């Protein structure tokens, strides 16, 4: 940020902008013992991405195998282990921690103007717990594999399966505590560490959704931890909980498991909502439509999400009346999600929309999540669910929400905050191609699964030679998965490339609004040189004035932030609203446009 100022002596100047959280220390020890939320986020980014590609490679094996009705290379037992591994890795090691532990960790404290999370060492502990849990899970694969499915239904998992179920259960148990510690950290941080002037209704919507997510994590994760522990005790010591042979109840497991695992779906998708709110608003350069409705819908989802678990069990022998209540509540939980979709779409109206790669991911999300959400109604409706449950229809619905929703938001957020995290710009061209490939590949992969599920193809089937009419859809699905894989591998290359030869990122390369764009890219260890004082409202864009400004100056790209003032040393003073928007914008435009 010292583009126009004279560089000050490094030793004396307290605002040395060349030292940031990345280059403050270089040893491995400095990384593994760090308390800096940004460094921990980077540790998470590396480890979670590794697990993501591991899980994706399992998905590739599944798709290859289903090309032919009688299998291609795998035995049934191996196939079962592969789809279990895909589910366990993707759910517990990618989707649940993904956005909170990477983007939440990095951005949430900066967004609210804090120096760090409330409990830095607890934050580091959560990463170690995640790694230990991940280690146990990988050990269970290497040591013989598990073939229970990621749902671990009893009594199969507790009494019949021969694999390394114990190791996997311990791994998930430990990784669960990683989530819990992160959740507690976020709740306390949002309550106690907001900068002066950062009122609750000035919080960026990403913070609201992380807050709602944290509440769900803290309330739900202990339940699944207990449940999996009980399975482990039954498996090892034959204590009677779930197996009728011992005197237990197998359906009890399903209640306890889904009591967590349905809210867990919201743990996976609420953070995505937060990212999408940021992207839509910032790339439309317009305040989000219905801020309060979007914020409170996150809380409504978090609350109602705990009351709908029984819709996974309409044919499980729970009572018919239970089924009806769960069906009704499931329809109601869809409403807040619908509100969000409407509000995001309305935000685009009269915006000044920049179709850069993060925005392309966000628009892709809008389309895919709409389909994912609406197909959920088929499953919320008890009558229609009876035929569709546990078929590929459910697989397609789940992936539309989890991949079309969470993964696209994850990628959008990663691209959006990449310059902030690394201080480097990536090439937007390849990123747009990647976004397009992901969108097309995803639809070709998963849309046919709606049809084949409607035809009746059960999920978790290795062979379908007795129903060859399903093959055409499976072949389409595999072709789509190839395109999807290409789209997902591309960022690996151009993002890595940007680390070494990307242009240096300005503090606010997107012209976005929010405290994280007020500090340098990458930020210093303390995030800000001075505690920011927030005076302007959230997403305080003025699309009309900006449009007029563009017309007047004939600029195509306005990189500046309208509200930031640059002092004589060339350092940013965050969050001080200028009374005269247009003049400060013009000044910013000149200084940052390099």
């Amino acid at each position, binding site marked *: 940020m010292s583009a126009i100022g004279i560089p000050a002596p490094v030793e004396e100047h307290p605002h040395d902008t060349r030292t940031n959280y990345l280059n403050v220390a270089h040893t491995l020890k400095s990384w593994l013992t760090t308390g800096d939320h940004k460094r921990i986020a980077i540790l998470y980014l590396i480890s979670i991405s590794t697990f993501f590609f591991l899980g994706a490679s399992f998905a590739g094996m599944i798709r290859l195998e289903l090309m032919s009705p009688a299998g291609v290379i795998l035995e049934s037992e191996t196939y079962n282990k592969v789809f279990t591994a895909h589910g366990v890795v993707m759910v517990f090691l990618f989707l649940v921690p993904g956005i909170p532990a990477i983007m939440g960790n990095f951005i949430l404290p900066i967004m609210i103007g804090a120096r760090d999370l409330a409990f830095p060492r607890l934050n580091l502990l959560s990463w170690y717990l995640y790694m230990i849990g991940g280690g146990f899970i990988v050990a269970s694969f290497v040591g013989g594999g598990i073939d229970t499915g990621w749902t671990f*239904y009893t009594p199969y998992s507790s009494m019949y399966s021969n694999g390394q179920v114990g190791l996997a259960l311990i791994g998930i148990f430990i990784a669960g505590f990683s989530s819990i510690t992160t959740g507690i950290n976020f709740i306390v941080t949002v309550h106690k560490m907001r900068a002066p002037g950062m009122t609750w209704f000035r919080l960026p919507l990403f913070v609201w959704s992380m807050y709602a997510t944290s509440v769900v994590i803290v309330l739900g994760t202990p339940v699944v931890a207990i449940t999996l522990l009980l399975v482990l005790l039954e498996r090892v010591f034959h204590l009677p909980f779930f197996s009728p042979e011992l005197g237990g109840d*197998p359906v009890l497991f399903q209640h306890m498991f889904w009591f967590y695992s349905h809210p867990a779906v919201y743990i996976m998708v609420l953070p995505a909502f937060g990212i999408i709110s940021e992207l839509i608003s910032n790339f439309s350069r317009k305040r989000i439509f219905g801020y309060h409705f979007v914020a409170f819908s996150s809380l409504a989802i978090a609350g109602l999400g705990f009351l709908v678990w029984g819709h996974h069990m309409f044919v499980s022998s729970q009572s018919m009346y239970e*089924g009806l209540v769960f069906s009704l509540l499931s329809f109601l939980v869809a409403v807040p999600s619908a509100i969000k979709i409407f509000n995001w779409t309305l935000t685009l*109206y*009269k915006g000044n*929309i920049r179709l850069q790669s993060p925005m392309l991911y966000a628009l892709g999300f809008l389309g895919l999540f709409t389909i994912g959400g609406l197909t959920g109604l088929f499953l919320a409706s008890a009558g*229609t669910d009876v*035929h569709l449950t546990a078929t590929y229809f459910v697989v397609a619905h789940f992936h539309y929400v989890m991949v079309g929703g969470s993964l696209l938001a994850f990628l959008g957020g990663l691209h959006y905050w990449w310059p902030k995290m690394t201080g480097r710009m990536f090439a937007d061209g390849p990123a747009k191609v990647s976004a397009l490939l992901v969108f097309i590949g995803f639809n070709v992969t998963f849309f046919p699964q709606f*049809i084949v599920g409607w035809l009746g193809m059960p999920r978790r089937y290795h062979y379908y030679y007795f129903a060859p009419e399903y093959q055409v859809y499976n072949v389409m699905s595999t072709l789509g998965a190839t395109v999807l894989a290409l789209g997902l591998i591309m960022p690996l290359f151009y993002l890595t490339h940007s680390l070494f030869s990307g242009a240096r990122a300005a503090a606010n390369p997107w012209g976005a609004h929010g405290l994280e764009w007020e500090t340098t890219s990458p930020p210093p260890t303390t995030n800000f040189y001075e505690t920011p004082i927030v005076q302007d409202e959230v997403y305080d864009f003025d699309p009309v004035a900006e449009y007029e400004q563009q017309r007047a100056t004939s600029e195509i*790209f306005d990189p500046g932030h309208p509200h930031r003032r640059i002092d004589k040393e060339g350092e940013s003073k965050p969050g001080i609203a200028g009374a005269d928007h247009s003049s400060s914008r013009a000044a910013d435009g000149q200084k940052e446009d390099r």
Partner: protein
Amino acid sequence: MPFNFPLAPPSASTFAGPYDTLFYTLCAFTLLFTLLIFVGVIVFAVRYRQGSKADRSRPVYEDLRLELTLLGIPTILGLIFFYFGAAQYIHMRTPPKDSQDIFVIGKQWMWHAQHSNGVRENNTLHVPIGRNVRLTMISQDVIHAFYIPAFRTQMMVVPGRYTTMWFNATKEGEYHLFCNMYCGTQHSEMGGKVVAMAPEAYTAWLANGGDNSPQLTMAQRGERLYNGRLACNNCHGVADNPRGPSLVGLFGKRRTFSNAVAQVADDEYIRESILRPYNKLVAGYGQEMPAYESELIDGKLTEENILELIAYIKSMNASTAAGTNVAPGGNNLNLQPLSIRAGAAGPAVNALAAEKEYSEATPTGHGKNLGVNAYAAENNR
């Protein structure tokens, strides 16, 4: 295999009609809202792209009435869909009092069904059309799910407790039967078919002790193929006809072929003539018979089937000698009761034999290929 694009599962129960109506209505609703969002996103993204000259004056950021409308519409639509879904669910979960009972046991990895008169079958369920059928089900080991897509219904089969499902089949035919709750290694092969039959045919089937009745001899099985699925009797009848010679008394007889070579008809000859009929074409007949070799390769016809056919052809000699009439009959006799079998064995023997078959049919972890063949054999019985 040529690809086909089925867009809907067969509809073969009373559930299917109302179910499909609800399903397609939801599809239309989904399509409508998806289009609304897609069109909205695309139109706005193009119209208000950076640098466009679209009017951006008087932007709106909050609109309580609009928000409440957007909240109200999905809520009301949701409640309407809930109502119809709930009605369907209550209907599906409430078996009528006059239902006929069939009992189902699931175990890794097969289905076992027992009809009220004691007839048992594995991986197949015969049901009458036009009658309410209630399945009372339990698992011997892990949780399974009994799923018939063509009937639009399924229910989990749980150890330690009974679950029930019911349906009323409407159309004769064979439909997929799947296990739809992951249950271990051969989960995907824990299935078979549901055979919906006309009530009379079902009653007859039941009276005969079912398809898999162990007291069927090889010749009787061969007879079912001969007069049934393969319909050999279309051309090879009681007497010679222009399309094909009668096979009565064939075995052991000397045949003269179109190339003037002659041979005594033995097992090997009959097998060859089924698979490659034109190698040794009986003098005076044209090349009209299909060669069944391709069916053998496809697995639609098994070596076991051929042995059974040969046994039946041999039996035509014996019966002719004895004067009883088991000569090839007309079409579609496969569902008629076989006179030989009726009353041949008492119920006690029947049950005992069925029990034996049940335990023998229990798979013991056979490999992939065996599983495939076993399925093919099951299909061809």
